[in-house]
């Protein structure tokens, strides 16, 4: 141990011992980063009303509460439906846009790109109340369609950026080769380019799904009535009182995120024969 403490950690000959404070600090930070996320999981199995840790009595009553409540189930259905639809709408639109901008020789490409990332730049509250007003006029308030459109707009910049950056690193001469061999541009894209930016596309789809699934502020305004989202109901519940059911819902949400990330790894990686 003493040997390690005295051995150099860097090219400038600073030893591990001199840096011990950094290592301790880093470990504390890591614990603080991860704990709040994970602590919800065991707490959701606590029988007590007061969410103790470690739980004295283990039970699944909060999960029963969640699955038994028609209100919560309605919200869950809305959230999953919206997130899924957002994913399948935003991903193709975003990938096409990224490809179009990447291959385009048009003068306004720069402007179009800036326009496409405005949803990331405009404060979310503003987007929310803007959509709220527009939807009242368009009769889209409290509808899944309205939610999907708004969430798609929020997800598009991510899809465009992730896919665009993958296209930048891609050798376009492969697409040219495919075209010289007889494939029209769209076919060359589908059979040659797309398989190779697959990881980026799948990641974009995941980002679109999660953007919608986790979204709170916009959903607060435009979801409700027959179609409230999970996040909207959770937020309202938080403002009133701390219902431990939320711990159960949180755990389920963490599970959903994890499953999606695993799916990205499965579908996104290149198949090795």
């Amino acid at each position: 141990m003493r040997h390690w403490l005295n051995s150099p950690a860097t090219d400038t000959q600073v030893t591990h011992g001199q840096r011990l404070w950094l290592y301790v600090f880093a470990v504390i930070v890591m614990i603080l980063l991860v704990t709040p996320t994970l602590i919800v999981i065991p707490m959701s199995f606590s029988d007590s009303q007061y969410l103790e840790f470690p739980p004295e009595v283990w039970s699944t009553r909060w999960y029963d509460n969640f699955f038994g409540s028609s209100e919560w189930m309605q919200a869950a259905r809305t959230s999953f439906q919206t997130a899924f639809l957002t994913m399948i709408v935003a991903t193709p639109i975003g990938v096409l846009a990224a490809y179009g901008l990447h291959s385009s020789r048009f003068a306004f490409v720069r402007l179009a790109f800036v326009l496409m990332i405005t949803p990331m730049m405009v404060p979310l509250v503003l987007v929310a109340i803007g959509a709220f007003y527009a939807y009242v006029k368009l009769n889209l308030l409290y509808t899944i369609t309205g939610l999907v459109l708004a969430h798609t707009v929020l997800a598009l910049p991510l899809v465009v950026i992730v896919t665009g950056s993958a296209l930048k690193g891609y050798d376009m001469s492969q697409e040219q080769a495919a075209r010289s061999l007889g494939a029209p541009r769209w076919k060359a894209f589908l059979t040659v380019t797309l398989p190779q930016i697959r990881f980026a596309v799948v990641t974009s789809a995941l980002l679109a799904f999660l953007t919608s699934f986790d979204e709170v502020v916009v959903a607060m305004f435009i979801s409700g009535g027959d179609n409230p989202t999970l996040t909207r109901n959770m937020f309202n519940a938080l403002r009133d009182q701390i219902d431990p059911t939320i711990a159960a819902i949180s755990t389920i949400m963490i599970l959903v995120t994890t499953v999606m990330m695993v799916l990205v790894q499965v579908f996104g990686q290149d198949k090795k024969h």
Partner: protein
Amino acid sequence: MSMQTAPLNAAGLRRDERLERLTLFGLSSPAILLILVVLVIPVGWLFYVSFIGANGQFSLENYERMISRRSYLRIFITTFQVSLLTTGLCILIGYPFAYFMSQLPSRFANLCLITVLLPFWTSLLVRTYAWLVLLQKQGLINNWAISLGLWDEPLKIVHNMTGTLIGMVHIMLPFLILPVYGAMKAIDRDYLKAAANLGASPRVAFWTVFFPLTAPGLFAGALMVFILCLGFFVTPAVLGGGKVIMVSMQIVSNIELFVNWGAASALGVVLLILTVAILWVASRFLNLDRMTGGGH
């Protein structure tokens, strides 16, 4: 060589070129259309509404209210306070942590990266809720601290500024760590060797060589954190307990409680202009294209 005849096929070729350009650009039209309809036009309309007074006529009263009413001024001050403090804390905690990660062999560094990305991918609401539970009077932190003898009475560390800051820092940290870590990884180790060779002590080498090279990444990360904090809603709303009122929360209550579209949109416009102004100033010093990976 001069042209003896009219340029062959020039008109047709020009037409083909124009068609191809339009088609390629047109691939991004669904996206552009959607953003225009759902975002640009409504926000444009809000801009217009902010100039309409209570009597339905053009007026600047919504903006005057922001300067004249003390409560509004306090909201702006609070917002800046929270944003600056959060950014500052993120830098103090995030920079050393990123440095630590950059010094690790890649397998361990990737492990640490996961601890940073895990909260990043988890729902914002879930994380905020977790802090609410941890920080309450009978929450984990208080219970453990009392049982360890750190303090006697449960501390009020939530439903106030402290709780808000803790939550915000936790949420914003990954946004700072990732760009800084990226900048650090990109530094050629030979620079530090050269500095040592030229006679710099480790401390001097760090401050005169390493730190300046990471400055762009740090600036980018801090900028992103600051801008996100300005417009943030969920965490201060939950952890602030009504005592920490940020601009975003005021906008929401203006609509939900008072249905005062004029006031709400004026606040929103100011927030938007602030964000754009800060980004514009920053773009003078920073290559934003690299950050977002966009443009040609």
